[in-house]
C-alpha cells in the first residue's frame, strides 16, 4: 500500500502534495524542470471566461517572510485553457484541479460547465476569494448566503466535484465554510491570501500599483493553521490546507490540524523543486513520526 495515497472527492492522489493555484501557472514552466507526474495533483491558475490582462505593475512586493501580489487573475481565457493548457497537461499522470473565477455568477457557471468536462480535470476549485479584482472573487467569498447560492449554481452544472477556496479576509471563516458546505461543496481549500500593503519608504506610497495585495508565504502559516483547525471542527467535508507551506514539517502541521491534502504556493517561486522535494521527504518523515500512512496524521491535533 502506498503510504502517501490520499482520497479526495472525485479523485485518489498518489501523494497529498500539490502546487497551489496561481503559483504554478498552467504547469508548463515547471515541466521544464521536473516530471509533473510526481505531483499529487495540480491546481491550475484561475480561469475566467475571457482573457484577462490583470492589474498594472508593480504587482508583487516582498515582505518579511512573505510577499504581496496583486496579479489580478491574469489568464488566457477559457477557450485557450481548454484548447492548449489542459491538453498540454494530459501527457502527465497527474489529476488537475481547475481553479474557476469570474466577475458574475454566470461567469463561474460558464467556466465550470465547460472546464469540468475536460478529461484531466477531476475537480473544480471555486475561487471566491481573490482579493485583487474589483468585481467578482472576494464579493462571493465574504457573504455566506451569496457563497452558498453560487456553490449551488455551479454544482448544478459541474461534471466533477466542486471544491471551494475560502478567503481569510472575513470575520468568521467557519461561517463561510458552513455556508459552502450547505451549498453542496465537496471540499474546502484554504486559505487564499491575506490583504495587505507595503509602502515605498521614500515616498510613503504603496509599492503595489493596485494599492493592496494578497500576502502569502511563511508569514501567513500561523493564520492558515488556526483557520484550518477551526474549520475542521465545523464541517464534514475534507479540507486541502495551504498558506505558507515550504517544508515537509509545514505539511505535517497542516495534516495535523485537519487537512487531507496540502498545497504549496509561494515556495514554488523561491525553490521551483519544493514540491518534488517535499514528496521525497514525506516517507521518512512518516517513519520518524511512527505512522504508516499519512491518513493517520490528519486531525491529530484534535484527538
Amino acid at each position, binding site marked *: 500500500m502506498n503510504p502517501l495515497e490520499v482520497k479526495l472527492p472525485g479523485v485518489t492522489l498518489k501523494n497529498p502534495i500539490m502546487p497551489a493555484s496561481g503559483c504554478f501557472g498552467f504547469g508548463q514552466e515547471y515541466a521544464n524542470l521536473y516530471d509533473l507526474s510526481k505531483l499529487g495533483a495540480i491546481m491550475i491558475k484561475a480561469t475566467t471566461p475571457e482573457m484577462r*490582462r490583470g492589474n498594472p505593475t508593480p504587482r508583487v512586493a516582498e515582505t518579511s517572510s512573505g510577499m504581496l501580489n496583486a496579479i489580478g487573475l*491574469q489568464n488566457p481565457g477559457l477557450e485557450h485553457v481548454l484548447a492548449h493548457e489542459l491538453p498540454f497537461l494530459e501527457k502527465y499522470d497527474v489529476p488537475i484541479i481547475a481553479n474557476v473565477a469570474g466577475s458574475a455568477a454566470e461567469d463561474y457557471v460558464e467556466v465550470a460547465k465547460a472546464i469540468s468536462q475536460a478529461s484531466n480535470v477531476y475537480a473544480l476549485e471555486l475561487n471566491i476569494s481573490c482579493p485583487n479584482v474589483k468585481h467578482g472573487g472576494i464579493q462571493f467569498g465574504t457573504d455566506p448566503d451569496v457563497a452558498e447560492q453560487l456553490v449551488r449554481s455551479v454544482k448544478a452544472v459541474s461534471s466533477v466535484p466542486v471544491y471551494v477556496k475560502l478567503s481569510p479576509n472575513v470575520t468568521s471563516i467557519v461561517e463561510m465554510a458552513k455556508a459552502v458546505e450547505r451549498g453542496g461543496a465537496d471540499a474546502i481549500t484554504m486559505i487564499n491570501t491575506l490583504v495587505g500593503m507595503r509602502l515605498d519608504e521614500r515616498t510613503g506610497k504603496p509599492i503595489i500599483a493596485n494599492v493592496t495585495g494578497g500576502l502569502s508565504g511563511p508569514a501567513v502559516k500561523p493564520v492558515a493553521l488556526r483557520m484550518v483547525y477551526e474549520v475542521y471542527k465545523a464541517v464534514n467535508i475534507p479540507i486541502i490546507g495551504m498558506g505558507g507551506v515550504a517544508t515537509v514539517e509545514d505539511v505535517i502541521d497542516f495534516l495535523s490540524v485537519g487537512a487531507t491534502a496540502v498545497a504549496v504556493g509561494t515556495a514554488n517561486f523561491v525553490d521551483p523543486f519544493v514540491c518534488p522535494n517535499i514528496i521525497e521527504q514525506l516517507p521518512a518523515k512518516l517513519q520518524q513520526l511512527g505512522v504508516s500512512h499519512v491518513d493517520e496524521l490528519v486531525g491529530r491535533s484534535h484527538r
Partner: protein
Amino acid sequence: MIQQEKMKVVRQQLVANHIYELTLEGSLTQQMNQPGQFVHLRVADSYEPTLRRPISIANIDQEAGQFTMLYRAGGRGTDVLSLKRAGDEVDVLGPLGNGFPVEETAPEETALLIGGGIGVPPLHELSKRLNARGVKTIHVLGFRSEKDVFYEEAFNKLGETYIVTEDGSSGHQGFVTTLIEEKKLAFDTFYTCGPTPMLRAIDHLFEGKKGFLSFEERMGCGIGACYACVCDTTDGGYKKVCSDGPVFPKGVVAL
C-alpha cells in the same frame, strides 16, 4: 536548460559605489550560451528575504566554469549577498530568459551598445561575443556620477567607449541619448539595457532601426509562472519579462 545549483564564490569585490562584482563557479556555467540572460539568486536558506534576486550575467568563462555578475547592493537581499566571501555558497537558478542575439549583426558590421547604470553589465559579455565574430562595437555607458562608473577599461579594450554621467563628473555630461545625437554615431544594430525611461528614449530616437532592448521589472519566480513581470506589447497583448524576455526586438514592447 535551467538548473539549480549551489555555486561556490570565487571572489567578490566592490568595483564602484555600492556596485559589487561577484564571480561564481559551478557546472551551471556550461548552460550559459547567450549574453543577456540572467540568474536568480537565493541569498539565504531561510525565507528572510523571501524571494530570489534576478541578476544579469556580465562575463562567462566556460573553460574555468565561472561566471561574473555585477549588482548594486542596498536592499535586503543584495546586502546579504555582498557579505559572501570566497568559498561561500550561493543558490543559483539559471540561466533564465532570452538574451541578446549576436547573430543579428553580421561580421564587419557595427553594433551600438548602450547601457544605463546597472544595465551595463550584460553588455560586457555581449560585446565580447560580438567582437569574437568580427563585429565592430561602440559602447555608450551612462552613469549618475563618477563614483558609479565601472568597467570603463574593460569596454575600452573591446571598442570605442563613451562614458556619460548625469553630472558631468566623468566623461561627457548628460544622457546617453544626447551623446549619441551629438556624435552622430552610425551603426547597423543597437543593443541596450537600462532603466525604462532610458529604453523609452532610445526606442523613440532609433525609430526604424534594428535593435534589441533588455527590460527590467519586479520579478517573482523568474521562470514565467507567477505573472508578476508582465509588460504590454504593441499588438495589444502582453509578454512576461522573465521568460519571454528580458531581451525583446525593438517594436515588440509598448514603450
